[in-house]
């Protein structure tokens, strides 16, 4: 699975993108975030308060229950501040 990070999530985690192999049992957005947080360090810091993390799956907004698999593109980012 491809994971993208934007804005301060990108800075805290220290990379803008990575390819990961999902562990068995991780099948939705909430699972991915829990798993990343478990890596500790910048991941734990960036994903500590999941209320302010927004998620897109395949470039469309997604919720905690949205299913994800190895072929998906998942993006994590803070609330947007465009315009």
């Amino acid at each position, binding site marked *: 699975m491809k994971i*993208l990070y*934007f*804005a*301060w999530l990108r800075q805290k985690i220290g990379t803008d993108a990575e390819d990961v192999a999902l562990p068995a049992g991780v099948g939705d957005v909430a699972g991915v975030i829990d798993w990343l947080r478990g890596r500790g360090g910048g991941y734990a810091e960036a994903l500590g308060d999941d209320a302010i993390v927004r998620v*897109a799956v395949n*470039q*469309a*907004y997604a919720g905690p229950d949205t299913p994800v698999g190895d072929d998906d593109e998942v*993006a994590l*980012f*803070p*609330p*947007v*501040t*465009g*315009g």
Partner: protein
Amino acid sequence: MIRVQADDFDIGAEIRALTAANTGVGGVASFVGLVRDMAGGAGESAMTLEHYPGMTERMLAEIDEEAHRRWPLEASLIVHRHGRLEPGERIVLVVTASAHRRAALESCAFLIDWLKTRAPFWKLEETPEGARWVEARASDDAAASKWRREDATG
């Protein structure tokens, strides 16, 4: 029509191109967002606009189509810049053209409210204390949610 670009745009030229040769257009509403000097004159306050290439274009195209479903528009344009921008520079342009002014005005407000709350852009401000990510404002969410009632795309 949508564009995501680093380059500046010319408002007058964009409006002319959008409405030229269509004499069914009676009203053109537009909105331009500019970089405000957040330092309040206490120094430079440029900013850098990060975005999510691919998703940005996809979402802008979707909301543009949504506006055409909701209002009888003859034409519309969204241009959103990314990259580093100085105070006074143009960030975003929304133009909507319709036979009737109400459709143009309402759809323009709808699109800019939406862009502010849903389009995947993030502002990194340069302040005297260093770079700082702009936090989302609750008032922006409120402005966008008034359109939500009939918003099939959520």
